[in-house]
């Protein structure tokens, strides 16, 4: 009994490195969320589809296909999944997040500078001069293209107090 449990755990650990197994799990999860959301809404009938009619069915189908992919992936001798690169993920998401928080309160120029600095936080290669130049040039391009070229109504500098 204990042995089957441990071999199951082993099998599971091996499967977790299988690319298609993980893909299947992801689809299963997305399908399950869609199904749950759809089930909570008015269904209606095929002739008069309610808002939940399609979500429920698409979700169920997606979950079912996800399950099939996961089972096939766990069984088959398919390629394993590569390592996820932590730093690049962090840099890209942090850069966008910082920009999102800064754009309305701090204005376009500081937000752009913060985005560039956050994005470059993982690759400091090159001198400080290079980084400064990059910030200045990109901020200038953005101001010229979006503020003056396209006329986007966004403040350039912090607006508090104003």
């Amino acid at each position, binding site marked *: 009994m204990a042995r089957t449990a441990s071999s199951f755990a082993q099998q599971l650990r091996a499967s977790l490195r299988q*690319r*298609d197994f993980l*893909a299947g799990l*992801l689809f299963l999860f*997305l*399908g399950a969320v*869609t199904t749950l*959301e*759809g089930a909570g*809404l*008015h269904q209606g009938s*095929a*002739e*008069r*589809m*309610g*808002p*939940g009619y*399609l*979500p429920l069915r*698409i*979700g169920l189908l*997606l979950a079912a*296909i*996800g399950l099939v*992919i996961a089972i*096939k992936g766990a069984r088959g001798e398919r390629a394993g*999944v*590569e390592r*996820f*690169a932590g730093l*690049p*993920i962090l840099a*890209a*998401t942090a*850069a*966008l*997040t910082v*920009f*999102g*928080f800064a*754009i*309305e309160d701090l204005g*376009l120029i500081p937000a*752009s500078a913060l*985005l*560039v600095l956050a*994005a*470059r936080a993982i*690759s400091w*290669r090159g001198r400080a001069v290079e980084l400064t130049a*990059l910030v200045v040039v*990109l901020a200038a*391009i*953005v101001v010229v*293209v*979006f503020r003056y070229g*396209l*006329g986007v109504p*966004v403040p350039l500098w912090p607006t508090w107090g104003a």
Partner: protein
Amino acid sequence: MSMDLWNNLALGLSVVGTWSNLAYCFAGVLLGTVVGVLPGVGPVVTIALLLPMTFGLPAVTAIIMLAGIYYGAQYGGSTTAILMKLPGEPSSVVTAIDGHAMAQRGEAGIALGIAAIGSFIAGTIAAALMALFSPTLAHFALEFGPADNFALMAFGLVGAVVLARGEPLKAIAMVLVGLAFGLVGTDVASNEERMTFGLSSLADGISFVVASMGLVGVSEIIANLEKPEGERTFQRRIGRIWPDRAALRAAWKPILRGTGIGSLFGVLPGAGASLASFTSYSVEKKIARDPSRFGNGAIEGVAGPESANNAAAQTNFVPLLTLGLPSGATTALLLGALTIQGIVPGPQIMEQKPDLFWGVIVSMWIGNVMLVILNLPLVGVWARMMQIPYRWLYPAILLFCAIGVYTVSNTTADVFLTAGFGLLGYVFIKLECDPAPLLLGFILGPLMEENFRRALIITQGDFHVFVSRPISVTLLAAATVLLITLLLPAIRRGREIAFQE
């Protein structure tokens, strides 16, 4: 009939011929090429990045500029494929093979020149074919009812699954994920919110700019960043650009064959530029006297696929404008842009907005002229741009993503959502799930739901409407057959081999 054609072309010319439209066409081609040339920025990302710039323009001008961006990005992608062996998208994979081999032999200029000339010839012929045949197709499409539209889109989605890289089952799942994302927001019929998880920022649905920038733009940056820099093989020497007589003699037949293949494949819903260039490459290889030259810098291997690629890129607009059916990720983005402009593509577009339709056709040809004028003398500049280190580029791309997304909706929530989609897109890359079917499902999903609903309201819930109308039943049957054959193991193996080539 032919009088009509000339009148229509004259109308198109009068639309494009204004200084401002010509300027935007040129700006589109230039920007598309400049951004498309940058390493690690494929055509899909280029278009997604530049889309927000067109939203403030009048509809006709916007679509003319978008078309320019589209060709520019395609050509820029071929340039990186030839000089750096970095195909930005599947359609330039085959160009990279022989084009880069030519570049290593010191004939980069000739490869680029032939690509430009081939693209120009293909673009000219394809534009003429479009002008001749799209009225007929649109006339035919006028007969389409909601049931037929639904069937057509279903067929298009199956086509996207067929063309997706990797496991077909995963591609089907990706279409469904796209459909699910497309459902997010307020249901048109009941006015009820669905799948918004109580977030007010999702009440209007997920903007396709957010989804596409995140899924293809941000995710590619993350994936590129994990590769060590400096491993790229770059060819400094360009050499002469204008091909000599021998090169032209070797290339003109492949160019014409590629144009034919591309024009045909571009019109088919679901098919697209990549399938056209793959087919052209294998045709050229098959009829070559010495197939072993392919892979080692055969000029036919550049001339054929590049012409096919460009012809298909253009005839793609036929199903896009007359049926509202995108054939790949790039045209799906264009469809989204049209929708934002308030233009509903469909067979009625030629009658309701003839200036738009014929303007686009004429602008295609003018865009191609500009592409040649721009590219032949500027190849050296493009080559230098390719040497820009990625550590300068990716902050710039992220910045343009962020501002682009923000300017479309003026909400910061969309910027955060883009980061989320970037993360998801990266997971999809790691799990080898092609994002193209997802984008297609995302854009077509709401349209399919509406047509499905309308079809059943007209017939008061009679499902026979889908099998009693000849167009609908044919398309649905074709889609079903395609789907079944795709899932059968024997045919799947053949497809895998074809994709490896």
